[in-house]
């Protein structure tokens, strides 16, 4: 490992440790809740990132979160499954549904694929509202979803009803997602996705199985989103169609695009900035959406490569200034 890589490695390790130790200092439950949401939204954003990395936009992520949440709730409440197993099964459900949806709809690309994912999202949300009311609970949804069942860790029984325990679950889920997405993208598979983004025609003619790579990538991302949805259900204890509006997918797209699409860390940065903004503007009530949307608009106009791209440019500008000063 080079020195630079080692520094980055320890920086990231330190950052994780810092976040993991935060609950020791922060006693206010409100802040723990915000931190948990940050982790959860990071999972949303990071798991959407590879779809953007292959050059497609998908709004269906919100729908897969809903699918994961509903699948997990139904399995626990109606079938009496263990919540941990239900989480795993909801990921499998998300994966399979994404395969079924992705295989036909990834024949088209760009705006057409985006519209297809939108149609799918509407179908999912409306299905949960109007179909199989005894199972999905109609517009009311499913109330009183139990938290994750207790586990025995290091000889001690740990309950998952409190905020702090759930924060750690969310943090682990986030690290797991980042790990999977990072290693996927830095493999042959990831290079194939990059080739597809740059030119799918050429990718096909240098031997990349474009269709299958795209479908598989879509399915993996959607499965991760479904896992996050399952956590959402057990954490909030209540799922309903209104918790997963069609705009949820757009919000997740905003996270990734505001943060900067070229790097995974950009997605997390986007989540942190937009969520903190949302919390600060909360007192404005209905104008909060207006304020965050304006912010997104400004970022997209003045920093086409997102916040991370903007920061990098700023850094190089400052270095240039310094160099001029030193030289002068």
């Amino acid at each position, binding site marked *: 490992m080079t020195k630079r890589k080692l520094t980055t490695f320890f920086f990231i390790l330190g950052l994780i440790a810092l976040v993991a130790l935060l609950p020791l200092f922060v006693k206010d439950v409100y802040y723990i809740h915000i931190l948990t949401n940050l982790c959860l939204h990071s999972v949303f954003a990071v798991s959407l990132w590879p779809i953007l990395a292959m050059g497609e936009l998908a709004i269906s992520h919100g729908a897969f979160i809903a699918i994961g949440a509903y699948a997990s709730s139904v399995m626990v409440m109606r079938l009496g499954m263990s919540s941990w197993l239900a989480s795993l099964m909801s990921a499998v459900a998300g994966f399979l549904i994404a395969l079924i949806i992705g295989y036909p709809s990834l024949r088209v690309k760009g705006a057409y694929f985006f519209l297809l994912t939108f149609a799918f999202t509407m179908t999912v949300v409306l299905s949960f509202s109007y179909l199989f009311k005894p199972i999905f609970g109609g517009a009311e949804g499913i109330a009183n979803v139990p938290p994750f069942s207790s586990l025995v860790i290091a000889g001690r029984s740990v309950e998952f009803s409190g905020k702090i325990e759930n924060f750690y679950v969310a943090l682990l889920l986030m690290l797991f997602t980042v790990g999977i997405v990072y290693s996927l993208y830095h493999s042959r*598979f990831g290079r194939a996705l990059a080739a597809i983004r740059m030119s799918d025609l050429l990718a096909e*003619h240098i031997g990349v199985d474009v269709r299958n790579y795209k479908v598989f990538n879509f399915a993996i991302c959607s499965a991760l989103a479904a896992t996050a949805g399952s956590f959402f259900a057990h954490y909030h204890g209540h799922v309903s169609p209104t918790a997963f509006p069609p705009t949820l997918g757009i919000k997740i797209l905003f996270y990734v695009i505001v943060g900067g699409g070229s790097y995974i860390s950009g997605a997390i940065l986007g989540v942190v900035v937009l969520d903190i903004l949302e919390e600060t503007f909360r007192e404005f009530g209905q104008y909060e959406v207006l304020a965050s949307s304006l912010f997104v608009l400004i970022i997209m106009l003045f920093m086409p490569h997102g916040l991370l791209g903007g920061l990098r440019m700023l850094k190089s500008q400052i270095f240039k200034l310094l160099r001029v000063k030193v030289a002068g």
Partner: protein
Amino acid sequence: MMLLKIDKITKHFGGLAALKGVRFDIGEGEILGLIGPNGSGKTTLINIISNALRPTAGKILFEERDITKLPAHIRLRMGISRTFQHTLFFGSLSAFENVAFGCEFSLEQGWNLFRRFSTRKGMQNNWSKAVELLRFTGLLEAKDKLAASLSHKEQKLLNIAIAMSSRPKLMLLDEPLSGMSPAEVQSTMELIKKIRDDKEVTILLVEHNMKAVVSNCDKLIVLNYGEVVAEGSPQEVVTNINVIEAYLGSETELS
């Protein structure tokens, strides 16, 4: 020996018949020139052979196997590669990376979902292969330049290098000489002959540059309005009355 057999290929775009029952063979080790006026269906035919398009009817046999329904990446692994008329490459990567990408994906190495490299040795293998290809096509000095910043001729050569990275048996070159000066045409044609001789690659060449085609191809096929109007050695073809009519129009009595 027959390498590729085009059997009654027909392609309709709506009501327009771009190809009408085209049939010809390509023998192993040939440089076959495919010529014809604009809009005669040359590029459509190349697209069908490499499966950027599906034919309306007809069959394509490669090494006596029916490949009409196989997807492009499988055809590539079987040994058919192509270049594009409009130069096509990954513009934000260097010339070397472009060819290395080609080397990496053309071989059947599985998906390797999580591992950084299939094996480090395999990766270095790809890299040395890419360098060797760049040397072969004369791009070694431009290896670290961004593909988008190369000169027109270098971009055309890069396309050939990418197409060669899969070790093809048959290369479909779609106007590799367009926009080149006479001297560049000369050197590129020499390169194409060298590919045929050294790498034992059969070449299907689509070109408008008559001089280069006539003096370098073993056999010519002339398309006009989606039909083969002449076939044979260059000397036979250029004196063929059908070909002259296709290019210059037919004689009419004026008096």
